[in-house]
């Protein structure tokens, strides 16, 4: 059971605003889903209101804040889409907290961006390549996809399309 000293609880509550979710869970930034779950269980056991009923009201208020943050952290980190959005936010030093609705919105925005392209040029060359693919013109498709990837080097979807087009092109080549 929680043998936490009240001072440990208040100390954590005091720095809650500075900890990112990984720090809160004592996790590395490349933590696996199973690590995240384990950390969620372990941290919850210590800071859950159920484990801390015996404390004074002031301490219990601190516990409430911590345990709510734990649920929030888990809700973000356990969902790959939300986690990606969150990782970007903390990399950009744009705050350690992320509201769930925001993470959802960012997640789905990212997905559409990946599919359609984030830059006008990326989109343009990707659309050209799609037309090439439909016509079976793999040579041009590969060229246009290469250009699209040049504009959006981090677009995994474009890269995957490029790899596939290359394969088809190779297969067709005499």
């Amino acid at each position, binding site marked *: 059971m929680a043998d936490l000293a009240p001072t440990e609880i208040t100390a954590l509550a005091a720095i809650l*605003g500075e900890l990112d979710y990984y720090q809160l869970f004592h996790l590395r930034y490349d933590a696996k889903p199973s690590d995240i779950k384990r950390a969620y269980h372990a941290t919850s056991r210590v800071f859950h209101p159920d484990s801390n009923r015996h404390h004074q009201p002031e301490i219990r208020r601190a516990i409430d*804040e911590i345990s709510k943050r734990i649920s*929030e952290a888990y809700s973000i980190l356990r969902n790959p889409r939300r986690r990606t959005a969150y990782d970007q936010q903390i990399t950009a030093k744009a705050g350690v907290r992320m509201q769930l609705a925001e993470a959802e919105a960012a997640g789905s925005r990212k997905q559409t961006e990946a599919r359609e392209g984030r830059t006008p040029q990326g989109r343009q060359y990707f659309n050209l390549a799609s037309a090439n693919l439909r016509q079976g013109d793999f040579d041009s498709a590969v060229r246009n996809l290469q250009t699209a990837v040049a504009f959006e080097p981090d677009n995994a979807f474009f890269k995957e399309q490029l790899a596939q087009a290359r394969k088809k092109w190779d297969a067709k080549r005499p």
Partner: protein
Amino acid sequence: MPERAIGIDLGTSNSCVAIREGDTTTVLANTYGERTTASVVFFQEGGSISVGNAARAGLIHDPIRTIASAKRLMGRFYGSEEVKKAQAICSYKIAEGDSHGVVIEIGDEQFTVPEISAMILREMKTVAETQIGESISKAVITVPAYFNDNQRQATKDAGRIAGLEVLRILNEPTAAALAYGFGKGLNQKVAVWDLGGGTFDISILEIGDDVFEVLATCGDTFLGGDDFDDRVIDLLADEFLSKHNIRLRNDPFAFEKLKVAAEGAKRALSTEDDVEIRIPDVIAGPDGQPLSIERTLTTGEYAKLVHDLIQRTFVVCDAALAQAGEVARDLDGVILVGGPTRLPLIRDAVSQYFQQELKSDVDPDEVVAIGAAIFATSLVNPTSDDAFLLDVTPLSLRIGVAGGLAESIIERNTPVPIEQTRRFTTFKDYQESVDIRVYQGESRNAQENELLGQFMFSGFEKARRGEVSIDITFEINVDGIVEVKAKDVSTGEQASTRITLSAGLSEGDIESIIQSQRTDRVASTLSQPTQGGRPAHTDEALAPDQALQPVEGAKPKTKSVKSKPTLMGDDLLPESDDLLEREGLEDVKLTPAAIDPTPGGKITAVDEDLTITAPTLDEPDAKELEEELFERPGTDLEGPGDDETKA
């Protein structure tokens, strides 16, 4: 001496109480030796009230004074579909109460639903006290996992009226999983399939090292054994109509007889292949001669009658599994809970759906109370080998926005406790208030969700547009109960006001019910350690208006947050309807109610200015208002949590 606390399964049909002492958890039987007690309250002519199995007699003899299945009405609004359905199957009178709630009319008395439930809870408390021989005040009370905030709040209120300190509102399937897996050191993923008298719940849990994590929960708060009975009642009533041209459903006495017969038939079919239904003298014929019903019902026929009801549960299971990211046949076990799961028909269907054998080492009637008792004890006497529960919120929490839509703030199956904050800013110069609606449910269409409450945040400093910021914080606690706090950021007004969104009883209502002792008249066959035989009521004590009147000075439809008379009555919320308007995902606007501020009378931004108005159930007026509040752009850049951590 360790502290004692009981676990109560407050069921639609039956309630059960258990206690854990040392290493054993015991179901406590009533004086009839029965381990479950009927959730029935009978208001006898003359004023005394009986509860439990003794009250069952009332179902036949005096159906309009006998309340069964009251749980179906808990936390419901009078105009809701659920209440209409209940009216169709209940003989007692269900009427509209304050705040669009429900009251039950017995003669010229009115009782709120939490009061009826309180009588049952008090009976369970008495059962426990009689068995244990000492008084008990702490309890964990279970609710269907799919209960919304209003229903949970109503249950908690019932506990308080019954003189209990409610340690926790616990989800029934979670309790069942706890009873199943506690202390066994399991590492399993299980489903709890719980079909009771009135509700269906499915929860998917992961049990590992005595941590019970709910992965997903789904349900239907209006599907249970009662509905199965209704199918048989329909069959019998229809056949009777074509044979005798008499509508049995219109006669409360005949209807109750049908109900008893239908329920009995169902029970019989849990052990037999067919059953002989016999209702002598169901009603008098045109010449006064007694007419009767006699008919054989086979399992095959019954299966057809209830087929779609069983299928409905699987649609819910599909959703729960999808949310949990699990596949039925990969689960390590399926736990069946609830009386109807004794039907082979149901067991087979469930086993087939999950593609596996069912766990048979749990008692479907007692497992929930046992889990509640285990948990109650761990809360009052924590030890190192306690089970530890991580539960979720069953329904998405939403805020109303324009065009009749509702944006999700906290998605369903998010672990609790949780808190989320959104910042809003005024759109118009000198704007003084904003009206906010909070919903629970899965639809983007506001009206298809349950309206938990509506409150007005007002009294901003006189300021130009954009200069006033309000943080609205939505919190769901470990009981699954919702609270909303609003804070005026701009004025530096640090008063962060907590608003409990309860459509039901206010603090004042509960206090006055407790004081009136109107729920204490139970003439139980059990000894009553606390109240003894209460004298018959006096008229004043029972005058419904008086007992249920909220805080003095407040109009019945408006509850003030503090017990001070509110400054803003209904009159300030004229056609308040459509306050909230939406444009694009990033750009939620709130339009305040069309309020004409009192000339000169500045309303200051203090706690007392916040009012919660009972939700108006009318269609929101879609007309767009000019005054608006914008969600502040760039909130994310400032870090939504900043203010809070400073506080």
